[in-house]
């Protein structure tokens, strides 16, 4: 316990209490609420909130006298909401809530960021959702997307299937944005035979700020889930930096392309399926799989092989990384190659070529897939001799899939099929992840 903590404890003071601090040596007397300290504050600093709302940091000195003036109030809780009666005319949709920025809320006093505790709190923050559809909110977990694993992807898939099998028109899944495109790819593969819109959304600015992108993202996502005839998984986020419309991007062709902008998600080697304007008008922009008349029960195929790696090739890279994974018993490796799908293969100096390692991996039954770090475009195994060498060594060229989608696909294939089958399917289109045509207008949009 630090000096400060010990002294506060002795005075019976805890965070949130109104206290006075007096120091004779500094001729100072201050009153305010004691704030929690963060990892960013210097160790000898006490932070109090003054009456004017400002926080100020005070350096602790041993002659300081502390006095508790008033007990702190309880933290803010959302007002209880009366259960809304379902409006028959509106479609029913499921909102699965998993955490992330969209579900975070600031404690206005301390500035601490918390995850929303109850799903209904999300409806409290975005009341217009209820004007769009009858929404059933379910919280699955409360985790940031970077902390999500395939176990969560499986869990989400099961709940999506459950909701759709119970008659919901569509499902909105809210997640963190960092790995949203991995999640969307995973759901695309796991929800085989999907016959309803599954819309993943989130926020780049938390919903407790008046400028949050969450409001438009959620409203557009709910609109798509409730009214569109799209039978695919996709990501619905801002189409531009303005709050004018959202783009709905196929789950296997979406990628987060910016660390912080609200229009970070882009369609890669594809066009968005649809746009939803702020007035909630859906404008279909390219071909998509439509909801079929007969509906079958959705049985998700959720197997996933964890021992699949995503590896980047770059100048001077050590091909020993392949040995490492093979040695660890990995069953699949996706390489993020350069250009059309290269790794170093004919370097003048010893120990740089990836060729022997890739050959050996393939021989040992590991499925090796090749993608490109260019992000945009298709890989090709024929143009250069070096490519042919890699292809001949047994690397599978993954067409126009992004490295992330190829990674998720291989994990999913190896989780549900044997290696031979996985090898056969990796380069073939299953759920729209591979397009045979590369359209001119699909670059940098």
């Amino acid at each position, binding site marked *: 316990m630090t000096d400060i903590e010990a002294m506060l404890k002795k005075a019976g003071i805890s965070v949130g209490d109104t206290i006075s601090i007096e120091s004779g040596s500094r001729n100072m007397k201050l009153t305010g609420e004691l704030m929690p300290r963060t990892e960013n504050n210097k160790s000898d600093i006490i932070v109090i909130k003054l009456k004017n709302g400002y926080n100020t940091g005070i350096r602790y000195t041993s002659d300081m006298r502390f006095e508790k003036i008033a007990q702190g109030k309880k933290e803010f809780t959302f007002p209880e909401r009366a259960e809304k009666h379902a409006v028959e005319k509106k479609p029913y949709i499921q909102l699965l809530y998993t955490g992330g920025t969209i579900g975070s809320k600031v404690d*206005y006093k301390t500035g601490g960021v918390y995850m929303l505790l109850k799903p209904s709190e999300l409806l409290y923050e975005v009341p217009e959702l209820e004007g769009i559809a009858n929404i059933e909110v379910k919280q699955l977990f409360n985790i940031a997307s970077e902390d999500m694993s395939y176990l969560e992807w499986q869990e989400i898939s099961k709940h999506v299937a459950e909701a759709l099998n119970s008659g919901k028109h569509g499902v909105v899944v809210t997640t963190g944005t960092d790995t949203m495109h991995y999640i969307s790819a995973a759901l695309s593969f796991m929800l085989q035979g999907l016959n309803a819109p599954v819309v993943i959304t989130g926020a780049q600015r938390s919903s407790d700020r*008046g400028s949050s992108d969450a409001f438009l993202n959620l409203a557009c996502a709910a609109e798509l889930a409730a009214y569109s005839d799209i039978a695919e998984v996709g990501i619905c986020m801002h189409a531009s930096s303005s709050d004018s419309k959202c783009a709905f991007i196929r789950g296997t062709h979406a990628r987060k392309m910016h660390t912080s902008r609200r229009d970070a998600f882009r369609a890669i080697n594809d066009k968005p399926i649809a746009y939803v304007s702020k007035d909630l008008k859906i404008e279909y922009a390219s071909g998509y799989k439509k909801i079929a008349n007969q509906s079958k029960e959705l049985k998700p195929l959720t197997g996933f092989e964890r021992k699949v790696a995503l590896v980047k090739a770059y100048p001077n890279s050590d091909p020993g990384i392949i040995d490492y994974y093979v040695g660890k018993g990995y069953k699949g490796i996706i390489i993020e190659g350069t250009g059309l799908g290269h790794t170093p293969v004919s370097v003048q100096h010893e120990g740089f070529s990836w060729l022997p390692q890739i050959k050996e991996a393939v021989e040992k039954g590991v499925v090796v897939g090749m993608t490109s770090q260019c992000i945009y475009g298709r890989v090709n195994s024929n143009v250069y001799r070096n490519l042919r060498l890699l292809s001949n060594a047994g690397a599978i060229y993954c067409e126009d899939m992004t490295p992330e989608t190829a990674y998720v696909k291989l994990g999913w294939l190896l989780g549900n099929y044997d290696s031979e089958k996985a090898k056969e399917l990796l380069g073939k289109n299953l759920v729209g992840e591979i397009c045979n045509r590369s359209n001119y207008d699909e670059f940098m949009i």
Partner: protein
Amino acid sequence: MEKSQNQSDYYKQIGFLCGLEIHQRLATREKLFCSCSATPVEKGTEPVAEVTRYQRAVAGELGAIDRSTQFESSRRRAFTYRIFDSHTCLVDIDEEPPHALNAEALAIALAVAKGLNCSIVDEIEPMRKEVVDGSDPSAFQRTMLVGSDGFIEAEGEHISVPSIFLEEESSGIEESSNEHVSYDTDRLGIPLIEIDTDKYIPTPKAAKEVALQIGLTLRLTGRVQRGIGTIRQDVNVSIRDGARVELKGIQELDLIDKFIENEVLRQQNLIKIRDELVNRKASTGKPVEVTHIFKNTESPLLKGNIKMKDGIIMALPLHGFKGLLGYEVNPSMRLGTEISDYAKMAGVKGLIHSDEDMNSYNISRSELKMLAESLGIKEGDAFIIIAGRGEIVQSAMHYAIMRAEHAMKGVPEETRMAYDTKLCTSRFMRPLPGGSRMYPETDIRPVEITAAMLKNAEDSKPDIAKAKSALKKSLGEQLAMHLLRSTRLAQFERISGMASADRRFIANMLLQQFTELRRNGYDVDAISDDKLVELLNYYEKGTITKQAVPEVLKALARSDMAVEQAIKSNNLERIRGSKLMALVSGAAKELNSKDSKTLLQYIMSKHRLNVDGSELNEAIERL
């Protein structure tokens, strides 16, 4: 002294409370939390891009939404942010987290805090203050407490300065309508110092003096921006039984006291109206739609409004308000104006009230009669009429009723905007915000104030007394004081550091000559410091006479020419030495006289600007 004592007593007696909030932009290289230029773009610069956003009030700490938040949110306006090359980046438009706090800005703020005798905080805790008018794309302003418990001496009074803040400037409004506001983001994020006094400034005159002193303190740093809009003085005023009103947008420092006096008068009049309304047992009635009464009206105003899509007319009876709507609360401002200003929030152009001349609107007697009947108007009652699109009229009526009802309670708390700079009156802008919601800015680390920072602040703090005594030595008391109170001190120091001319001469040029020329329409402020130095050097070398200096200034203010060209093309070169001798002997021949007075007068009448008087005298004597 006696008069000011009387004044002071008077204001004490009416329960006058007054405090200032002074905002000053700092002249730093970069903005407060990013590396964009901190100098606004030149007028007329076109943006490179725009984004449009919507903001909403989010549930507050207590689940309640702040008054002005609710007001803005009820308007659901679209905000467009104009993005300028080198002046706007993703941080500004809420697309990237803020970078570290600008150390240059912090150093200036600390020096000012020291100059105003504040104690400096040990660790700065950056905060977010919720902003709801859209002027900040993030919907909050970043702000931090830098110093507290300071004071300033003004007119022998000790005025407390409880806090000094360092914060971000907001965006500037480019265009605004009821549905949409367009903001320029070049201004956004420029470092701003806010200095607050306590509310015990005793008189309007003292308020002016305090504002002057704080302005001087800021300028003495030499690190503040100059020009219109770079300093803003907001005044909080109330009297006993009145209410706190925040006056914004007073540009002329010299008019602060007049604006305050008028606000006091306004509150006194509103209290009188309140008392009379209570006395009359006044009340507001229910609004009634009266479109049918005016369907064949001759009134162009009403006819126009009915004709538009969804156009309606509504009227409201105000029982017991007769004569009071037309009561002047401030020069040219009536209670009717105040109610109208509220209605305008909804987007109507104004309203008609019964204390106005109905003939001027072409409203007929029979229409008035029908109106009175449908509203149940009796003797002593008044009414208002609002016309426009249905939804807007409904909402305008709501605001009008709100204001009319407040007339029976007294003075509403408001933010008001300086309106008429001749009459020094203000108009309603928005309801006074409740306590701003503030919470920590977790994207920025707290900043520890080190001993080195404190020493630097102490060494560079603005010190009025020191500046005054230094100036007095070279300029004398009067000129020194004049210069200190002007906005030209920094320029004076810069120029006198570069030019060899006498400091008094320079000070006089910047103060007297500039003022006079500006009054005569010459844009002397557009002349660069470099040119001024060059001009002074020409004078010092004897290339031009003292009298020619204002003429050169005129030429330079008129067009962007070189100083040498300005002198030559206007024939302002000094005539001296042998040329002067020749001029004198020529004149003597011409006049056939050697009388020095005659010669002097003759030559001066022809060459006043080119000849130095004493040199001429000597030349005549040598003849």
